[in-house]
């Protein structure tokens, strides 16, 4: 009896650690802050009420991502329409700004905003795979599980997505360096 309760509390704590990652993925899927917040809550609700939770030290994160993706697919299926496109809040996460000079903080913010904007402007499938691999650090096999596709597809799509991202960033960085200098 107590074991179940302890497990549930531990699960809740472990699951909550992934809230930023899930919110980022939700934004990548929905491109809409309100929908992303709803999707995050829906994901936690489904995860918490699931009969069997995975090992909290093991594949909890990818399990939560699979739940989120399936919840989003269901949502789209019900609405029978594509994702809406609206501007995202571009304010970056809080960094330990007290230890850095204003100039370094400014450059870091600029770089993060550029990366963020470049990722946001990628086509849906590319944006999703960049978030899963380069932002969240999932392995190819974990991504294949989340996307329900072969690992070979993950590799090829990731290669194309990075190629596109590289082009975008190199163009933007050239422009911004010119501005800073």
């Amino acid at each position, binding site marked *: *009896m107590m074991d*179940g*309760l302890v497990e*549930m*509390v531990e699960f*809740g704590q472990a*699951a*909550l650690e992934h*809230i*930023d*990652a*899930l*919110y*980022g993925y939700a*934004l990548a899927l929905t491109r809409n802050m309100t929908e992303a*917040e709803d999707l*995050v*809550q829906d994901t*936690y*609700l489904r995860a*918490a*009420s699931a009969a069997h939770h995975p090992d909290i030290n093991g594949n909890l994160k990818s399990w939560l991502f699979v739940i989120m993706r399936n919840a989003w*697919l269901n949502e*789209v*299926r*019900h609405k*029978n329409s*594509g*994702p809406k496109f609206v501007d995202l809040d571009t304010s*970056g*996460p*809080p960094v330990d700004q007290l230890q850095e000079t204003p100039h370094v903080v400014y450059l870091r913010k600029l*770089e*993060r905003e550029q*990366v*963020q904007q470049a*990722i946001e402007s990628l*086509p*849906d*499938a590319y944006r*999703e795979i*960049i*978030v899963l*691999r*380069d*932002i969240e*650090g999932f*392995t*190819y096999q974990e991504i294949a599980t989340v996307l*329900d*596709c*072969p690992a070979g*597809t993950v*590799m090829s799509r*990731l*290669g194309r997505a*990075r190629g596109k*991202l*590289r082009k975008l*960033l190199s163009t933007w960085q050239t422009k911004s360096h010119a501005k800073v200098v």
Partner: protein
Amino acid sequence: MQKCEDIRGRLTLYLDDELQGEERGMVEAHLSDCESCAALFARELNFLNAIRKGAPLHVAPPELRLKVEKILRQEHVVEKSRPRRASRMSWLVAAAAVLLLLALPFLVWRVVKQSSVPAVKTSSFALKAADTHLRHMRGQLPLEMESESPQQISSWFLNKVNFSVKLPNYQESSGQEKLYTLEGARLVNYQSDYAAYVAYRMKDRPISLVITSDSVARPSGGEEIQARGLTFHYNAIDGLKVLTWSDRGLTYALVSDLEERGQQSCIVCHEGTKDRDLLEPLKPH
């Protein structure tokens, strides 16, 4: 020393930490010996670091965090209340156990009887087709070739799939009003092989046709409908109408959100008057 070409082919895997053991050692040894590959590696690493340093790109708003914490707390309460409910209801459980013992011979008879009837389970091919349709609608599966010509699409599949795709063109040959539009095609993965995906649109609603060899997928499950010597399997999957069938070595899945059993979607191949005898049995009775 390994050829630079071989190493560069593995560089992405190495950077993504997907190589182990001997392969990993081989790449590392080469990078310490080859300046040009090492320079390429440094450039790639800088690029990936630039992206990865940006993480996390977003932080969940505090209000959202509070809502999620509440959701997780409520689940604790539910979990906590379960044992209490169980103890209060224990006499009911005991009574149910007695009833179960009394009813056991009848239940065994029912299970044995039902086990002789095949289970109506949706085939994985039907599920895959519905999922593919949905992903295409979401823009996750863009078409690899766009054309309204059945001939062009049929030719595009040559040497890409292990079977022959021949799309008919009933509209053109019959001179009928254009009821549907062919949009294009792409390859999709199914059972470690490629299946053909063809996208149509009728009255602004998408229709998907997924084709594979019948050695890879056989239609099964769902409601069986006999029409013109073929057996169609009809499944309603999350609001989508999926018809699967096999004919002349190929297995097809037609997905739409059209009315009834989606039999209207069959006109992408069967629109002529002579085909009415095929469509009629597919309508619900």
